[in-house]
């Protein structure tokens, strides 16, 4: 404590003479060994903390097992989730055939050829290259469409037409009955079954998928429509056939040519 400091802090009760006398006699110092021990302790304290700080700086920050593997685990989880999602998504190619697969179940009759009329049988036989829809495996039915155009647009068209086929199937018996009453002179017997109609219509729809239809296919389509009693539809199909091919009548079966001549 310096004299200046002592004088600076003088109090009203202080005695200058006494303070001076005190300062003269009070000059003890701590032993050097004690000083050295205290300063050594101070250095040790800072050295320890500095070393710790340096060690902390040098050592990479501790990362737990979870922290180290978290990015990889997250990536694996995302990849797995994407895979499962892709696997669980319905494939476009499977949508349309699944509707077709229901056709046999919803169709009451199973053997149309045996109960069908000769005209219908002939119409179906005319399309000898294409087996009946009810006996054709699913893959062979859809194969032409896939082969022509791999795009999903074609599949959606297929699905749409298949739906139309189903609707026609539902309306087929009624249409057949109406045709029988409206055109008694028609060569098609009235006992055409709904199964035959469905088979023929499905076949026609299947042929529609295989674009462009050739002359034989068109003739078969006209015959099939005629066979199920859809005279108007058959006439319309014949007109379109004629528009494409003026000699369309020659492709028709003999039994339909007389009727074809009545179609303008």
């Amino acid at each position, binding site marked *: *404590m310096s004299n200046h*400091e*002592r004088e*600076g*802090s003088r*109090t*009203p*009760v*202080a*005695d200058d*003479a*006494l*303070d001076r*006398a*005190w*300062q*003269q*006699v*009070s*000059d*003890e*110092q*701590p*032993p050097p060994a*004690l*000083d050295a*021990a*205290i*300063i050594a*302790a*101070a*250095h040790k*304290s*800072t*050295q320890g*903390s*500095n070393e710790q*700080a340096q060690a902390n700086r040098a050592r990479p920050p501790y990362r737990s097992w979870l922290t180290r593997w978290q990015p990889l685990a997250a990536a694996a989880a995302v990849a797995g989730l994407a895979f499962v999602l892709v696997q669980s998504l319905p494939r476009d190619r499977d949508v349309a055939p699944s509707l077709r697969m229901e056709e046999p179940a919803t169709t009451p009759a199973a053997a149309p050829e045996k109960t069908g009329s000769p005209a219908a049988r002939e119409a179906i036989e005319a399309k000898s290259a294409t087996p009946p829809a009810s006996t054709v495996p699913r893959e062979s039915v859809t194969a032409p469409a896939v082969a022509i155009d791999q795009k999903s647009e074609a599949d959606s068209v297929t699905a749409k037409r298949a739906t139309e086929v189903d609707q026609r199937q539902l309306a087929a018996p009624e249409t057949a009955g109406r045709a029988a009453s409206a055109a008694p002179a028609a060569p098609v017997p009235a006992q055409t079954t709904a199964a035959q109609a469905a088979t023929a219509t499905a076949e026609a729809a299947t042929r529609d998928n295989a674009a462009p239809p050739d002359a034989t296919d068109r003739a078969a389509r006209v015959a099939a429509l005629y066979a199920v009693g859809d005279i108007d539809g058959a006439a319309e199909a014949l007109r379109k056939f004629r528009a494409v091919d003026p000699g369309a009548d020659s492709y028709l079966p003999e039994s339909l040519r007389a009727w074809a001549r009545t179609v303008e």
Partner: protein
Amino acid sequence: MRAYGQGDARAFEVLYARHKAATYRYFLRHAGGDAATADELHQDLWLKVIGARERYEAQAKLSTWLYTLARHRMVDHWRSRHGMALESLEDEAIVMQAEESVAAARAGSDDPLHATVDAEARQRLFAALADVPPLQRDAFLLHVEGGLSLEEIAGLTAASGETVKSRLRYAYRRLRAALEDMT
């Protein structure tokens, strides 16, 4: 102290060089000149300072903080050595005993073994201070060794300014008497 708290050991050396003599004498006077006790208390104080370097916050003067620690250590010493707190020594009976002790010390200072005047003066002063009641002595030492003002001492000892002034006045009177005897 802040620099030392940030790991600068040289700052501690400066700090220690500035305050070591005063704190040592603070303990030495309270211990009645017992160097071993003063060494022990002085070392304890500075080790406490070293230990508190990272927690130190400059809320008051460093010397005030330093002598607060020193006084706490002194009080602990008194409790352990004499089984009583400093406050219990302030009653009139103790004061009377202290005055008697001053007289006895004054008689003892006539010892012919003291060769020099300085040595005699020192002996008389220290003997007189040793017989000053602890609280008065503490106020005196905080003032003359620690350089603390009356207000700082009042804050440090949790006493009013008037009380501290009274304690100081009493200590000065005692020591003045001893000094007058020398002259």
